[in-house]
């Protein structure tokens, strides 16, 4: 048996070998007492480092990335549920917020990452599960954001002077309303594109996304609904909760803005958890299977009695709803939105998250969203600062070279490299990772040798 296994190793491509090594490492660290010690120690070191060095710096950046990696590794590990759930909860509900009070930048990055996790998960329903390439996804985010921005500010009096803004406490029902409005717009987009597939679908959805942005840009005349390119300012935040409890009972002297950061962090975290639960339940149900069947072969899916129109619209609606809800939160958190916030690049960014993580894969979308957000907000700007510091210190980098200008280039190169070396994404859907192993088999497609199969199973 050992010989068979070694023969297999020779046949394996480098990618497959590294995948195997990774798998072994995962099994080793993911189970048993080794895992408890590893994760415990890792968490302790990270927490200690973050708490003792909260100042924004390269070093803190690195530990922050390691911290997020840890959260993800724990969540994905094969440890018992109490350990996995418990440690994830401690890291996200205790360590992260406390660190956030020490340095507001990082909790903002975490909140943004969370917003994009929900968006990526939503887009993954449409693109990954149902196979409908949607390039205008940010439109639903915009709809949610403008919904709250217009109705919570004096902007509404521009539409009709008799109307008045909704009180800030209405934020909570509006998050739910965002969910509903997102779904409605998802169906509105879905209806005209039902018959389209592939490239044609992509073009029409791209157009839809632009239509929403252009509408937002131009609906300041004849009636000023969106305030046009100037955007909407001073968007309301819900009244703070638990302030007395935190300041007096706990004795933590946090400013309002710190409390709001904490507040939005927790709101986003809750929505992300809600999204993950809903999406994974749908995935393993008759609905999720119907979506995947439509993606795989529409004609065959319909021949199994799957109502094509209904299922596609449901995918569009479910995907869009998370974006709508997050839009409300985003507008409230940012205090200001304008049309360029919702441009095509944003849609493409979200799509890149899904593709980078692995289409159709829930953990993949989460990881993809976190990676892209970190790259965007933290890692690439940090590289730029490091380069600029080097420049100032006399390293011969041409003066005209401004590293901040190259962020998107670096991002592009990363994506291209990714597509060359791991086109299925970082964490492909587990079922689909089998495709990879299938590719490693010798060329005879029929009748895979039983010995190889047995070896693969026993190893």
């Amino acid at each position, binding site marked *: 048996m050992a010989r068979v296994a070694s023969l297999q190793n020779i046949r394996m491509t480098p990618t497959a070998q590294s995948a195997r090594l990774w798998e072994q490492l995962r099994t080793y660290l993911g189970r048993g007492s080794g895992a408890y010690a590893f994760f415990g120690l890792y968490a302790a070191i990270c927490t200690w480092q973050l708490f003792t060095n909260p100042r924004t710096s390269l070093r803190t950046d690195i530990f922050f990335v390691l911290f997020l990696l840890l959260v993800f590794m724990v969540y994905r590990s094969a440890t018992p549920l109490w350990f996995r759930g418990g440690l994830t909860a401690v890291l996200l509900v205790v360590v992260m917020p406390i660190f956030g009070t020490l340095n507001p930048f990082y909790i903002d990055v975490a909140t943004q990452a969370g917003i994009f996790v929900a968006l990526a998960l939503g887009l993954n329903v449409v693109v990954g599960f149902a196979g409908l390439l949607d390039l205008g996804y940010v439109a639903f985010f915009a709809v949610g954001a403008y919904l709250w921005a217009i109705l919570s500010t004096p902007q509404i009096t521009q539409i009709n002077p008799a109307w008045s803004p909704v009180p800030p406490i209405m934020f909570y029902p509006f998050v739910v309303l965002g969910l509903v409005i997102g779904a409605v717009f998802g169906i509105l987009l879905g209806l005209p594109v039902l018959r389209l597939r592939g490239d044609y679908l992509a073009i029409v959805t791209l157009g839809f996304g632009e239509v929403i942005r252009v509408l937002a840009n131009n609906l300041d005349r004849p009636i000023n609904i969106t305030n046009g390119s100037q955007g909407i300012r001073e968007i309301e935040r819900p009244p703070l909760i638990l302030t007395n409890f935190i300041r007096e009972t706990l004795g933590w002297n946090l400013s309002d803005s710190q409390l709001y950061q904490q507040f939005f962090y927790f709101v986003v975290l809750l929505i992300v958890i809600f999204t993950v639960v809903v999406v994974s339940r749908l995935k393993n149900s008759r609905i999720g299977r119907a979506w995947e069947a439509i993606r795989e072969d529409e004609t065959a899916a319909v021949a199994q009695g799957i109502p094509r129109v209904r299922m596609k619209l449901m995918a569009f609606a479910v995907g869009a709803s998370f974006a709508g809800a997050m839009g409300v939160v985003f507008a409230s958190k940012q205090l200001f939105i304008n049309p360029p916030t919702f441009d095509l690049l944003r849609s493409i960014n979200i799509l890149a998250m899904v593709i980078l993580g692995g289409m159709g894969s829930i953990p993949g979308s989460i990881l993809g969203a976190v990676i892209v957000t970190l790259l965007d907000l933290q890692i690439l700007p940090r590289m730029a600062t490091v380069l600029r510091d080097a420049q100032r210190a006399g390293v011969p980098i041409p003066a005209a070279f401004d590293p901040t200008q190259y962020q998107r280039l670096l991002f592009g190169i990363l994506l291209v490299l990714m597509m060359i070396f791991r086109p299925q994404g970082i964490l492909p859907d587990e079922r689909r990772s089998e495709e990879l192993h299938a590719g490693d088999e010798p060329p005879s497609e029929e009748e*895979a040798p039983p010995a190889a199969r047995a070896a693969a199973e026993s190893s």
Partner: protein
Amino acid sequence: MTSNILEARNVTKTFGGLVAVNDVTLTVEKGRIVSVIGPNGAGKTTFFNILTGIYKPDKGTVIFDGTSIAGNRPDIIAALGMRRTFQNIRLFDNMTVLENVLVGMHTHLHAPFWQIVTRAAGVRREEARARQKARELLAYVGLDEKRDDLAKNLPYGDQRRLEIARALAGQPKLILLDEPTAGMNPHETDAATELIRRLRDELGLTVVLIEHDMRLVMAISERITVLDYGTKIAEGDAAAIRSNPRVIEAYLGKGAAGAAA
């Protein structure tokens, strides 16, 4: 009233100037195994596509189990209990064998959206039952050990069997098999013949098949319909078809028909 599960009358379908199916009538009694044969391009698959709703017939009526279905949507026809397999296997390649069968059960699973999201007890029960049933079906066609393989990694013969298992998952009354043994070796063909016979004898299904393998057709069909250039040229039992001069002509040419006669 009648014991006919399927009555297709005067069905015609044209594509541009080409008459793919011309005034074809086919009635199938409950519990029969019926074959549709004919040379390549005779319109057999087009006829199946009309029956299953992929194409709308230009003329004619199709009555399935007492319901008129001509021009209905394919998913509605499938839900009524008519299932099919495809000539060029159409499995859900990147789903597992078990999931393929579960997709076939779609019309028998009713868990509403909100219950799935809240994972109500009823949903979990239904899902467990469906998995159990799917595994029974896989065992029936001999694929249970491979239930977690991706469909596309199955050997050819297994893919054919999985397609049949997926069709069975819809608990059909009538199953249409489009060339179920195409590309199989004689040994696999024998196994497939046996399976088709069991579908009828054990499950009480009505089977309509398109087939080129005459050995299989003659062995298991109780009635055979012959199409040529979209027109029905003969109908009858195996012996009658074998000696029908028009059939011989269609398959072998005019000279052969004369020689046989």
